[in-house]
């Protein structure tokens, strides 16, 4: 064997470093597994007591210790749907502007500004939503909507400003930069040859976008939408500020409601009874599992796309 100048010390150091690095990488696995196990363990009281019925029971009565997730799930879904309905088309159009319409000198700063929207912390959106957007909704936007749409139950009730609709609007603004970033990259990846073929046939920019770029980048767009969806569902502070925090399921967009995350943020530190606390943790478990599924699907989808793009180019 070759004699080492420094004896065995370098080998030991290398082994230690490698072991430490391995432990740190493994730590990610431990945390992700731990999240699920700990949340499941801490919600066992609630699971034992309410069973699967927890998912569709609309009860929320801390005095009688009777809890159900339905109103929180409803508010989460409703505000997320509103957010996606607004944010997805808007993101597509902004991405179109950045890639196809704007000259590069304009596209770069605009793109930077849109990305800055993602850097603003959630609580700042909450402040703006509560003190600026909500009063505006109450005095101007919601009465106008009621005048236009009349007596539809979707727009019934007093225009308070806070509620499901306002929460959806703030969420839309918050997920917009994430979806835009993905869609912009997808649009930019479309091979120029494909677009030039379209232009060569005499198509306009819009026709090339609709028939070539969107078709080519559809899968990437779906991935971006999934990422935005995952963000919107778990968003906490901004929603807590403007959704009204009321355990009820109403048909009106103007009604106050709550989401899983806002219920946790509002009630967790007040929950004194073990069953109450356990029910809140179970809400957290539901949110964790749902976002986990969405994230896993989005990541699998996007990595598969990246691999395909890598193999064809």
């Amino acid at each position: 064997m070759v004699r080492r100048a420094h004896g065995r010390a370098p080998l030991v150091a290398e082994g230690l470093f490698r072991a430490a690095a391995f432990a740190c990488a493994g730590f990610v696995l431990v945390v992700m597994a731990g999240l699920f196990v700990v949340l499941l363990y801490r919600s066992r009281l609630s699971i034992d007591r309410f069973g699967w019925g927890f998912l569709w029971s609309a009860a929320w009565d801390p005095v009688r210790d009777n809890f159900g997730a339905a109103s929180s799930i409803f508010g989460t879904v409703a505000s997320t749907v509103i957010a996606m309905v607004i944010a997805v088309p808007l993101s597509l159009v902004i991405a179109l502007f950045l890639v196809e319409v704007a000259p590069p000198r304009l596209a770069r700063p605009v793109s930077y500004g849109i990305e800055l929207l993602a850097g603003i912390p959630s609580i700042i959106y909450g402040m703006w939503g509560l003190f600026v957007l909500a009063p505006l909704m109450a005095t101007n936007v919601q009465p106008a909507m009621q005048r236009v749409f009349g007596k539809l139950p979707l727009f019934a009730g007093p225009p308070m400003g806070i509620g499901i609709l306002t929460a959806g609007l703030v969420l839309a603004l918050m997920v917009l930069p994430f979806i835009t970033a993905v869609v912009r990259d997808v649009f930019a990846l479309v091979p120029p040859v494909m677009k030039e073929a379209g232009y060569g046939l005499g198509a306009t920019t819009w026709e090339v976008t609709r028939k070539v770029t969107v078709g080519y980048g559809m899968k990437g767009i779906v991935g971006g939408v999934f990422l935005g969806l995952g963000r919107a569902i778990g968003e906490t502070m901004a929603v807590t500020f403007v959704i009204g925090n009321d355990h009820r399921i109403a048909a009106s967009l103007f009604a106050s409601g709550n989401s899983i995350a806002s219920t946790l943020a509002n009630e967790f530190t007040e929950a004194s009874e073990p069953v109450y606390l356990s029910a809140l943790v179970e809400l957290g478990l539901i949110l964790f599992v749902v976002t986990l599924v969405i994230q896993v699907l989005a990541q699998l989808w996007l990595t598969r796309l990246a691999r395909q793009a890598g193999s064809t180019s």
Partner: protein
Amino acid sequence: MRRRPAWPRKALDAAVKVASALAAALGLGFLAWILFVVLRHGAAALNWTFLTSLPSAPGGSGGGLGNAILGTALMTLLACVFGVPIGMLAGVYLAEYSRGTRFATTVRFLANVMMGIPSIIIGLFVYAVLVLPSGHFSGWAGGVALALLVLPVVARTTEDMLAMVPNALRESALALGSPHWRATLRILFRASRAGLLTGVLLAVARVSGETAPLLFTALNSPYWPRSLSGPTANLTVTIFNYAMSPYPAWQQAAWGASFIIVVGVLALTVVSRTLTRERK
């Protein structure tokens, strides 16, 4: 064959282009609106007392958020002390020791997923693991919760940055007899230091404005943070509590705190972005 007139198609094209420009302007308009509101209300609240003294009693005026500023700084620092080394070592393992293995693929995948887990869930987890067993809220728990948010970001950027270092550099270091760990720390880290710094700054920017993970861990406190083993004051939870309060003086203070958070977070974001651009 009869020619279809081109003008409807051209008109539609122009309309879409105008609409896309309007949409982009709308996005930027909201950014400007939010920043303007925070800066205007916030600047009115800021003065030397605000930055250095303890909060006023409910309903009282005057006072400041010095304790919350210090608490947020301490917990963000703690998040870096815990999160950055672990994240970097995890990234090193992925990039240097296990490229292409199933373990590396799994860890990379889960780190990506972990970045998308709502931060309130991380807070809930740390509450169950640290706060419940110890019986009280603490700044340590807050720091750990923030560290868990820093970790996947730093791990992924470290791996990506190391992967971009030319293999020749790695091989030359190893050929000179340097052990792999020293080659990594001395040569590869130095070659990719701008990228690594960007990752850390972005993670800090993200974490220093976080509220949800602190709600159940650090909670909040009207006192100076003497030790981190009790409830610890911080800016973001203070904003939440004050904004929901009926006192105008407290709502004003919430705007002041928002100002500090926005300026701090955006400065970090812009600095890290500038670093990235220089590298290219």
